[in-house]
């Protein structure tokens, strides 16, 4: 099975060593000793950290243990410390004496050997007995004190924590410090912080939040069973069975994506035994039809079509990889450079520059010429170990990122890792980077290999298939056989896998750049790769632990690209979101004082459309890289109230309603007017692919789709081709014309989703040529940001009402905005 590799893989093995100090994690063999009490056998180091005694002495005193053994790689080798004379192993009684005339020393116990008369006459000087434990530490020349760097990178354990964990070990010798911090089932989780003492504390905060989110995700997905599903059968090019069926999207938050795993069940009938199989979603059509590629093709009841059931198969992979990355971050000193380590934890580090010769030109072959702010970004980033690039909508984030990656790859510091949280963004970047002439490998999750991709020729699985297609190639032969028969004999399958793995390694290693999702960076196929230079695009849409996955593969230079003024990561579990899991690493670094480099020229929106977002979200710094002329809708006859200003706010007074599911909203009047606007656009010569309808509510989205296909004045097919989506799913994309339906229209309740300024920013910055907003100004104006948006539209005579073919300035009164309390 394809996924077996992954399932047996242990994430976050890092370089965890058995002999790491159980208090602080220091694992330098010269600095640690093992408690030799048989029931204990734990390792401790000889640093004091924040306590008065060293860790080993602390342990021995607290646990009343008295014997120790040195590490096999320490200068003395694996040695139980004991009196040379009598064999006493109590370290509290031991000390060194030296010979009178030679540089020879030996361990001797205080009682009785030091006071035995016979020794006194011999070669040994008993007057200078030097105790093994001095000043609450082991003799430093015998057990070294970890260096300052080692100590800084270790867990900063307090005396109180030591007491607690020692207490815990009395009943549970295998307990870890993390067990001390575990919140109870009903406890509110510990919120995220700005700074962390060490990577262990970081892990203690984030691990429970990821667990919460994972549990919620599992609960939700596993409750998504559907019965009475009708199947249409097909066979793929790879001879695998494909089941097509409709999996209607309801008002819940669950969205199927390619790569998801579903189980298809048939309970059996007179002609068929009961059957079930698992498969991957390889395609989703606009009509909400799902294509599921089944793993096993045997026994499929292909002549049955009705009465199937579908369950969601929940996978913990992404959460496991996040947890693993945090563990690696803590225990493996080589996971990230010291500078990155301390910076990520919010420690004050002296600014460091990267010593690299800068290129003479900052653009890259195959990419458009860079503008001044893009050049500045590339130049700055190349000189710093960690940097943030803020890319407001349409400012050429991808091109800038590709140029940075190009120059990094040319510095010869090894392969560059390029990630983003979403597959779409990774594909876009991979394409741009490949255009510069660099060798790019796009690593996809195995579950997505059958999913079509615009950069298929860059994917690892494609390159493996096409590396050597000569008849001599054993791999090629086996692949053909597998394609023809669907499966291989077990010995052939073994051979095939080994060959495939070797080829994968060969191709990946010869690439200049590896592109994958953040979670994909935790793929076992990259486990032995090291990346000093890492760029993460859309990093403001990833959670911190997600961002950490690509970083812990050896990062020394990190570039985070994103825009914290647009929407952040989606967190389903309210508890986890409240505790701060939705705050991205990018945002926290901004709060810590790292200044993002902002790209300042936007090439998307008509200058009239960029004015308000620039002033409200980017301190007015957004410049226009497109002119009014370049955004003129020539030949399009649309009733814009002010010519040359392709925008208006269309006043709506229709009531909002709660949708059938009870969890969302819809607004019939707005939906009807959306249809009228769409029809007007279509009649005036705009094609469906140019139009996007966005709305914050799933209830309204579904209602508009339905309404347009039933009541659209033109051909039904035209309306089907129009994308109707949530604001959130439109982030990162653009359309020529955007129609925004606000939905909320209730005097007493709030405006819900619309309250988030970042969502408004995203909604307003999707359109290139024109935007129409439908909403109730009376309700929206209570919120300060909406109030200023409405005022902006009113001042420009773009606040209108009435029928589309006779729009009039609206005189509707705004409400006083409520003060914002932050």
């Amino acid at each position, binding site marked *: 099975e394809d996924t077996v590799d992954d399932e047996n893989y242990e994430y976050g093995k890092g370089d965890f060593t058995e002999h790491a100090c159980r208090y602080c994690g220091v694992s330098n063999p010269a600095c640690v000793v093992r408690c030799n009490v048989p029931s204990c056998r734990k390792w401790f180091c000889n640093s004091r950290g924040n306590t008065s005694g060293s860790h080993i002495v602390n342990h021995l005193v607290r646990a*009343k243990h008295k014997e120790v053994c040195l590490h096999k790689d320490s200068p003395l080798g694996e040695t139980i410390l004991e009196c040379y004379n009598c064999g006493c192993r109590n370290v*509290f009684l031991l000390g060194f004496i030296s010979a009178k005339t030679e540089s*020879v*020393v030996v361990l001797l116990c205080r009682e009785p050997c030091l006071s035995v008369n016979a020794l006194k006459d011999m070669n*040994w000087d008993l007057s200078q007995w030097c105790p093994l434990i001095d000043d609450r530490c082991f003799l430093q020349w015998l057990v070294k004190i970890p260096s300052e760097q080692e100590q800084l990178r270790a867990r900063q354990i307090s005396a109180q924590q030591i007491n607690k964990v020692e207490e815990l070990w009395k009943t549970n010798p295998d307990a870890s410090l993390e067990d001390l911090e575990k919140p109870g089932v009903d406890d509110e989780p510990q919120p995220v912080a700005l700074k962390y003492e060490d990577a262990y504390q970081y892990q203690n905060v984030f691990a429970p939040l990821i667990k919460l989110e994972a549990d919620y995700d599992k609960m939700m997905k596993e409750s998504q069973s559907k019965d009475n599903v009708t199947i249409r059968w097909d066979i793929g090019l790879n001879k695998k069975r494909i089941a097509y069926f409709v999996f209607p999207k309801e008002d819940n938050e669950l969205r199927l994506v390619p790569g998801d795993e579903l189980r298809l069940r048939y309970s059996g009938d007179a002609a068929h035994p009961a059957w079930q199989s698992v498969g991957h979603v390889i395609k989703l059509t606009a009509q909400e039809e799902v294509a599921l590629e089944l793993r096993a093709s045997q026994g499929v009841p292909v002549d049955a079509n009705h009465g199937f059931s579908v369950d969601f198969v929940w996978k913990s992979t992404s959460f496991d990889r996040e947890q693993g990355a945090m563990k690696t971050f803590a225990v493996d000193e080589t996971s990230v450079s*010291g500078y990155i380590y301390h910076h990520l934890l919010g420690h004050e580090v002296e600014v460091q520059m990267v010593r690299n010769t800068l290129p003479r030109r900052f653009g890259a072959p195959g990419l458009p010429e860079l503008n001044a702010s893009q050049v500045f970004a590339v130049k700055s980033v190349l000189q710093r170990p960690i940097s943030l690039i803020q890319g407001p909508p349409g400012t050429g984030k991808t091109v800038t990122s590709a140029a940075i990656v190009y120059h990094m790859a040319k510095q010869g510091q090894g392969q560059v890792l390029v990630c983003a949280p979403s597959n779409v963004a990774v594909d876009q970047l991979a394409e741009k980077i490949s255009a510069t002439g660099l060798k790019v490998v796009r690593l996809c999750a195995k579950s997505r290999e059958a999913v079509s991709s615009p950069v298929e020729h860059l994917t690892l699985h494609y390159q493996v298939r096409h590396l050597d297609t000569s008849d001599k190639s054993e791999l090629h032969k086996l692949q053909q056989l597998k394609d023809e028969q669907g499966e291989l004999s077990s010995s052939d399958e073994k051979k095939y896998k080994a060959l495939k793995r070797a080829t994968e390694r060969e191709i990946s290693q010869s690439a200049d750049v590896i592109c994958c999702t953040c979670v994909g960076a935790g793929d076992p196929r990259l486990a032995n790769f090291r990346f000093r230079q890492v760029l993460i695009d859309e990093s403001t849409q990833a959670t911190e632990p997600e961002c950490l996955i690509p970083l812990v593969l050896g990062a020394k230079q990190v570039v985070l690209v994103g825009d914290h003024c647009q929407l952040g990561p989606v967190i389903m579990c309210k508890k986890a979101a409240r505790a701060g899991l939705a705050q991205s690493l990018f945002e926290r670094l901004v709060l810590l004082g790292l200044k993002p480099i902002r790209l300042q020229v936007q090439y998307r929106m008509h200058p009239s459309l960029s004015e308000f977002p620039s002033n409200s979200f980017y301190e007015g710094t957004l410049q226009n890289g497109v002119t009014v002329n370049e955004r003129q809708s020539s030949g399009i006859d649309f009733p814009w109230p002010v010519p040359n200003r392709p925008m208006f706010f269309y006043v709506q007074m229709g009531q909002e309603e709660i949708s059938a599911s009870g969890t969302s909203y819809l607004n019939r009047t707005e939906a009807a007017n959306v249809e009228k606007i769409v029809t007007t656009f279509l009649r005036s010569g705009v094609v469906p692919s140019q139009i996007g309808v966005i709305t914050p509510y799933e209830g309204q989205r579904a209602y508009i789709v339905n309404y347009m296909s039933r009541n659209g004045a033109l051909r039904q097919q035209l309306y089907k081709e129009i994308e109707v989506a949530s604001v959130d799913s439109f982030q990162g994309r653009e359309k020529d014309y955007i129609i925004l339906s606000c939905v909320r229209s209730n005097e007493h309740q709030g405006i819900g989703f619309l309250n988030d300024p970042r969502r408004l920013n995203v909604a307003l910055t999707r359109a290139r040529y024109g935007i129409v907003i439908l909403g109730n100004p009376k309700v929206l104006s209570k919120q300060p940001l909406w109030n200023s948006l409405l005022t902006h539209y009113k001042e420009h005579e773009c606040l209108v009402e009435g029928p589309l073919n006779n729009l009039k300035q609206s005189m509707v009164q705004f409400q006083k905005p409520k003060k914002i309390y932050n």
Partner: protein
Amino acid sequence: EDEVHVRQKVAEVDPVEEANFDQELKAVLQESMEQRRLELRGRPALNMMIPMNLFEGSSRDHHGRGIGGESGDEALDEETGGNKEVQVKVLVKRGNKQQTKQMYIPQNCSLVQSTKQKEAAELQE
């Protein structure tokens, strides 16, 4: 290569914690001594295991490296704050065999100081 300068907060050890710890450490020591005396009561006198003739003929390698089969091979640790180090042999037992292992200890350690002083005194005679 990977040097990083972290502006550290000075880790202050809580004096109460320090006092408590000292007390506990003393208690463990005391208890160890007493336990030892109890154990030894009524035991026959000790055999002297410490060799007397170990050093004959070895003084010429005194400051050389690599004496004996299993000498330590660790590099001189330079990070002892400008304090010079001297090489010593640590006598240990492996089963019944005696072995010496080389180590470096700070020159200002009382152990070596007495030896040095005596060496100096002997030289003067």
